[in-house]
Structure formats: structure tokens, C-alpha cells
């Protein structure tokens, strides 16, 4: 069966219509048939009556006489010819003659309804079952008058078989005349009903397809009536739905892209604390697998208890909750700031929570460095000041101080003030470097000259400490784009450090070369070296591997910090290779000034 015929709407629409048509046809048919049957009966009665009148004339002479066989023969012959049954009955009811039966075997007919009616009214009819012919029959009787006196009755009868045959024919005719238009009407009705049902079915199917996600589906119903309007409205709705879904998808992708691009970790959970989203940063911070964690309880996903605590509390207390958790590892502490916010749905009810994980390790470390710096600088400044104050106060109090002691004190005050001045100038250099390139004056300069000069000025100090200082310089100038002052500071610091930390008899090798478009300065010593765990910290301000020794050497603790900052300000790098007891090698790499002659020569010299 085609789907259209399974449509309930079709049958609901059509059943009423069909019922009305069929009922009308039936009523018309019944009325017509009854009318026709009535006509047939009338016609037959008329015939019977006519026959009765004719037979009466024949029978009139015989009714008052006893039964006569010739008369009987005649009636019988008459009946056989016309097909109608004739009965002649005497006044007392005795049957005198019958066209179908032997009158002697027949009952007295005086009590037959048609006879009684004929006796009273001049004519009587009756329709009943005749035992004589074993069929329903119609009887018509009229009185026979002899000389104005009732003498007997003539009865004619016809079986209803004949009547039925006639009326059947009439019925067939009428039925035939009705069936054709009814069939036409029904067929037409079906077509009309279908024309309403089909678009409805199409719409249903399309609506289902759209709901299932096929947003490209459109209705192709072009009609001017309400159904066409409905179909257009449906198409418009589908189009808008698609546009809205597209917008939502775009928004969602945007949001996901934003979340994925965030440095902060974001974990969102639903009301039951199941993870609905965890961005890449969150996965990295918490060490979880994003895909595997979706839909799982947050406390199953991460072992960082604070995360689930923050989410749960944000939801329960309906407020933003900020906390911090420290995750110590073998190398360093990881500090994560957690900001948990409850999520609300359209009805403003709490529908989950989101926690933002912000890695503040570096921030906290920087804060610690700053704190240390302030503490260190106060300490570094206070030490020489305290010494100077002590010396001066002693000199003031002790007027009787001998000249030699006084001289010694003054020399000490001089030393301490030099140290203070060094410290302050190093701090100024550092702050100039830290403020970025703005504090520096860049120009084309020959690094070879700077290194040579530095070695020249420090050769004396090296000799005093019995350290061999060997400068290894290239034959051509090494031109870089740099600040002469700053670079000299860098080289001085590296060379003087190397001399300071190398025991007598050791050597300091200073080597300048060009390599892949960079100037490379290596200062290698055979000194005390730096333990591996301290190597990453020697560039920090005021960091000293051996505190007592450094001060004794007159260091400010800022030298290597300055070196690092100068190198960085020149876009260069600094690295350190060292082993305790075997010496250290500092290597500074700074880009050559592009397009100068030294670069070509440098390349050739390699």
C-alpha cells in the first residue's frame, strides 16, 4: 500500500464524504425502488381486476348452479392461456371452478379476507401465502350478481414471483443508473482528499528530516492556497533554523578556539560535577587526557583535590571562589591560582561551574626575586655604611688616636666608600640595562678593540695573582652594532671574574671569533668552577656561590647580572659550562653588524 493510503487524515477526510454520497444514493435508490414496486403492484392489480371482470361475465350463468365440469374446463383453459389463476366461488364459499386446482379438494373460501371484503365492499384484495400454489400470491375478488342479487364471487390471483421479477428488473435499472455517478463522485472525492493529504505528508516527512538534522531539506509545494502558505512558512522556518544553528556552531567554534588559545586552563563541569570541557592548557597543567575525561566526574579526572573542591563550593555557595594551590615538584614549585565561577542556565538556576587555572608560578617567583632583591640591596648598602659609620664614630670619640691608626682608618673608609660607589654604579648600570635598549647608544663598534683594551688593563691584576691571561684575537675587526660602554663593562666583568676565581698558577683564556654571522667571546678559566645546581642562578642579582669569598674579592654580586643584561640587550645569548674544581667557560654570542667587511673576513677566517 502506498503511504498516502495509510494516512489517517486521508481516511478521516474521505470517509465522511463517501458516507454522505453513499447514503444519498441509497436513499434515492430506496425511494425510487419503492415507488417503482408500488407501480408494479398497481399494474398487476389492475390486470387482475380486468381479468376478474371478464371472468365474471363468463361465470355469471354458472354461479348459482351446482358445479359443472365443462365450466370448470373452460376456466382451467382460460387460466392456462393467461397465466393467471381464476377461481369461481359460490355464495356459500364452495369453490365451483379453479384454473389450477381441482375444486372438489379445495376448502370452503367464504372466510378468505378478499371474499369477505368483496361481499361487503364490492371488491377485495389480499396478499398472502397460498398453500395451493405454495408461493406468496396476490388475490383479488369481486362479487358476481345475478339479477341484482349476490350469487357468488370471482377471484383472480397472481403469484408474487411475477411481481418480484418485475420489481427486480426495475431495481437493477435504478441501481445501474445510480452506481456510475456514485463511483465518479467517490473517485473525485478521493482525488480531492489526496490533494490535501499529500502535501501534509510531505510536510511531515520534511519536518521530521529537518528535526533529524537534514537542514538542507526543502518542501517543493507551489500552491496559492493555505497549504502553499503553510509550506512556504515551513521552508522559511527551516532556513532560519539552519541559519541559527550555523550561528551557534560558529559561536561554539569561536569559543572553543578562544579556550584552546588561552594560556589559562579552563575546566567546566555540569551540575553533577561531570567534566564538559577541559581546554589544552588545563590538560597540560593538570596532566589529564581531555578526550578521556569528558563526561567523567571531576574528582576521577584529576588528583588535585582543590580543583573539585573549588568547583563544588562555587556551585553550592553560588559565588566566585578564588584560591591558590601549590604543587611542589622536584625542581620547583608550581603555583596555580584557581578561580571557580558557578554557571547558570537560561532559567538562572545553577547548572554547573567553570574553573580557570592560572599558572602563577613565575609571578610568585618574580615576587620572591623582587623581595630578595630589596632585602639584598639593603644588606649590601648597609654593610659598608655601618663600617664607615663605626670607623668615623671611633675617630670622633678617640681624639687621642695615633696618626698611624688614623691613617689606617681613613684608608678603610676610603675602601668602603669605593665599594659603595662601585655598588651604586653597578646598580645604575643594571637599571639602565633593565630599562631596555632606550638606555643604550648603539653604533658600529669593533669588539676586538674592546676585548684587547680590557685585557691590557687587567693584565696587571692577573700578574699580581699569578694568573696567565692570554687574549686570542682574530686578525680582522669584529664589528657589531653595540654600546661601547656596555660592551666594555661586559668584557671587564667576565675577565676580572675569571681572574678573581682562578687560583695562582692558573690560566684565563680570552678568545674572540666569528661564527655563522655572530661574534663569539669565550672566557675560559681554570678556576674553582661552579656546582651544577648553582649554574642557573649565578646570573641572578646578588647571587654569590661563595658569599664570604666574593665580598673579600670586593665583588658587588652584580657583575654577572650585568653581563647577562648587556648580552640580552644586544640580542645575544650567554651560556656557561663549568665543573667544580676544573674551571668555568662563559660564552657570549652577539650578532655581527650586517653587511660589514669584518663579516666577510670572519667567514673567510673560519
Amino acid at each position, binding site marked *: 500500500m502506498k503511504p498516502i493510503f495509510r494516512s489517517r487524515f486521508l481516511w478521516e477526510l474521505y470517509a465522511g464524504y463517501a458516507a454522505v454520497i453513499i447514503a444519498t444514493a441509497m436513499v434515492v435508490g430506496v425511494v425510487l425502488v419503492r415507488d417503482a414496486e408500488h407501480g408494479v403492484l398497481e399494474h398487476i392489480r389492475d390486470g387482475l381486476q380486468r381479468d376478474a371482470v371478464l371472468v365474471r361475465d363468463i361465470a355469471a350463468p354458472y354461479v348459482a348452479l351446482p358445479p359443472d365440469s365443462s365450466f370448470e374446463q373452460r376456466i382451467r383453459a382460460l387460466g392456462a392461456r393467461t397465466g393467471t389463476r381464476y377461481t369461481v366461488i359460490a355464495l356459500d364459499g364452495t369453490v365451483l371452478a379453479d384454473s389450477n386446482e381441482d375444486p372438489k379438494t379445495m376448502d370452503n373460501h367464504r372466510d378468505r379476507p378478499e371474499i369477505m371484503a368483496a361481499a361487503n365492499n364490492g371488491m377485495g384484495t389480499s396478499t398472502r401465502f397460498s398453500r395451493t400454489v405454495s408461493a406468496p400470491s396476490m388475490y383479488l375478488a369481486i362479487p358476481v350478481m345475478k339479477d341484482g342479487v349476490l350469487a357468488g364471487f370471482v377471484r383472480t390471483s397472481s403469484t408474487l414471483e411475477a411481481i418480484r421479477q418485475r420489481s427486480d428488473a426495475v431495481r437493477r435499472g435504478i441501481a445501474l443508473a445510480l452506481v456510475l455517478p456514485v463511483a465518479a463522485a467517490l473517485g473525485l472525492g478521493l482525488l480531492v482528499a489526496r490533494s490535501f493529504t499529500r502535501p501534509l505528508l510531505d510536510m511531515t516527512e520534511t519536518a521530521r528530516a529537518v528535526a533529524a538534522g537534514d537542514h538542507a531539506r526543502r518542501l517543493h509545494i507551489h500552491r496559492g492556497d493555505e497549504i502553499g502558505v503553510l509550506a512556504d512558512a515551513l521552508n522559511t522556518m527551516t532556513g532560519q533554523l539552519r541559519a541559527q544553528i550555523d550561528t551557534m556552531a560558529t559561536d561554539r567554534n569561536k569559543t572553543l578556539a578562544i579556550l584552546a588559545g588561552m594560556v589559562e586552563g579552563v575546566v567546566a563541569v555540569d551540575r553533577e560535577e561531570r567534566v564538559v570541557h577541559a581546554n589544552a592548557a588545563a590538560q597540560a597543567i593538570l596532566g589529564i587526557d581531555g578526550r578521556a575525561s569528558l563526561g567523567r*566526574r571531576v574528582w*576521577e579526572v*584529576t*588528583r588535585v*583535590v582543590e580543583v*573539585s573542591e573549588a568547583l563544588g563550593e562555587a556551585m553550592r555557595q553560588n559565588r566566585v571562589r578564588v584560591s591558590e594551590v601549590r604543587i*611542589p*615538584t*622536584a625542581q620547583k614549585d608550581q603555583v596555580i591560582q584557581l578561580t571557580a565561577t558557578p554557571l547558570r542556565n537560561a532559567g538562572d538556576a545553577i547548572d554547573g561551574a567553570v574553573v580557570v587555572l592560572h599558572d602563577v608560578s613565575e609571578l610568585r617567583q618574580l615576587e620572591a626575586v623582587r623581595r630578595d632583591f630589596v632585602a639584598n640591596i639593603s644588606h649590601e648598602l648597609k654593610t659598608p655604611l655601618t663600617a664607615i659609620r663605626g670607623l668615623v664614630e671611633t675617630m670622633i670619640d678617640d681624639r687621642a688616636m695615633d696618626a698611624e691608626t688614623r691613617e689606617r682608618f681613613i684608608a678603610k673608609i676610603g675602601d668602603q666608600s669605593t665599594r659603595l660607589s662601585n655598588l651604586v654604579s653597578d646598580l645604575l648600570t643594571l637599571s639602565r640595562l633593565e630599562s631596555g635598549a632606550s638606555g643604550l647608544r648603539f653604533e658600529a663598534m669593533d669588539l676586538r678593540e674592546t676585548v684587547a683594551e680590557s685585557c691590557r688593563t687587567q693584565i696587571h691584576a692577573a700578574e699580581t695573582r699569578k694568573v696567565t691571561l692570554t687574549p686570542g684575537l682574530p686578525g680582522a675587526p669584529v664589528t657589531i652594532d653595540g654600546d661601547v660602554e656596555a660592551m666594555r663593562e661586559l668584557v671587564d666583568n667576565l675577565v676580572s671574574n675569571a681572574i678573581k676565581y682562578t687560583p695562582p698558577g692558573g690560566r684565563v683564556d680570552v678568545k674572540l671569533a666569528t661564527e655563522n654571522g655572530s661574534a663569539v667571546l669565550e672566557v675560559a678559566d681554570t678556576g674553582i668552577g661552579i656546582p651544577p645546581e648553582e649554574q642557573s642562578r649565578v646570573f641572578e642579582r646578588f647571587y654569590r656561590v661563595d658569599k664570604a669569598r666574593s665580598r673579600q674579592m670586593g665583588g658587588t654580586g652584580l657583575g654577572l647580572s650585568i653581563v647577562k643584561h648587556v648580552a640580552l640587550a644586544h640580542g645575544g645569548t650567554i651560556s656557561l659550562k663549568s665543573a667544580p674544581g676544573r674551571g668555568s667557560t662563559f660564552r657570549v654570542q652577539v650578532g655581527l653588524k650586517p653587511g660589514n667587511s669584518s663579516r666577510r673576513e670572519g667567514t673567510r677566517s673560519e
Partner: protein
Amino acid sequence: MTKHLQIDLDGLSKELLTMGAMVEEATNRSITALVRRDKTLAREVIAVDDAINDCENRIEDHALKMLALHQPVAADLRFIITVLKVNNDLERIGDHAVSIAERAVVLADLEPVRRPEDFDRLVETVQQMMKASLTALVERDSALARKVCTMDDEVDRVHRLMYSAMQDVMRNDVRQIEPAVNTISATRHLERIADLATNIAEDIVFMVEGEIVRHNY
């Protein structure tokens, strides 16, 4: 009824996993404190033990209440029994973490002792076992739990090595006796943590498969 049971089971699971996370964190922190000679961190571990003990009591209380109230059968019953056992083991691990932290406080003030390289392996294996047993609990992964059981052999081997290594240290340098003794003590606690992690793993195999595998490994 079943729904209430399910909610309660979820809650119990959350409490146990939270406790597991706390204990794992305490273990890791105590080890870090030991390695980094960080007294502050060690004291933090010692301070958090009260919270772990409270957690143990709460979980036991809830589990017993659920047994009485719901009278669970089959998998649910095995789960609650496992929770009770794991709960106990976790609390013991927490105690060992405190002991390690106490050793770390003492060791931080003493001369650093030269630990054999195997010590790093021991620490790493114990941390892995701890992590894997809790992951097996979360994932109800009996295969992973069985793997944890086999890792214990490695811990036992390194533990034995540590004894002889520390003996050598003490023989060579009398001043190193105190730090060496404390280090041995810490190592012993680490070995106990590995045993308890193995217990947890065995309980997980029982919970998932219904088979008792204790003493097979």
C-alpha cells in the same frame, strides 16, 4: 531504593578518591621534601595528616551506614568492602608519608648523605605505584592493578640494595652515621608505602573480577 544506593555509592567513591588524592599528594610532598631538604614542605605534610585521618573516619562511617541501610549484594557489596579496605591502606600510607616528612625535617639539618643512584629509582617506582593504583581504582582497571603488584618486586630489590649502600657510607665516615640511619628509616617507609599500594591494587582486582589475588604476587 536503588537510586538512593547509587547516589550513596557515587558519594562514597568521591570521598575515597579525594582521600586518595590527598594521600598521594602527601606522599609526593614528603618525598620532595626529602629530596629538596625542604623543612617547610615537610611540616606541611605532617600538618595535613589530621585531615587524612578525619577523612578515613568519615569514609568508614559512611560505608558501614550503607551496609546497614541498603544491604547491598554482588558488585555493590564488593565495592563497599573494597572501599573499607583501601580506606584503611590509604590512611596507613598517609602515616608513612608523615614519617618520611619527619625524617626529612631531621635530615635537612644534617650533613647531606650520598645516596646511591638506585634511591632515585626507588622513589620513582613508589610514586608510580601510588599513582597507578589510584588510577586503577578510578578506572576500575584490573589489568593496571595487576601491573602495580608486579612493580613491588623492583621496590623490594632496591630496598635491599639501600641497606648495604648505607652500611658502606657509615663504615667510611662516622659523621655520616646519623644521616644514613635516617635515610634508611625513610627508605623503609617508602618500601611500606609500595606494599600498601600493592594491597590496594589487589583489592581492586577483587572488586573488579571478584577474585582474591592476595599473596599471589
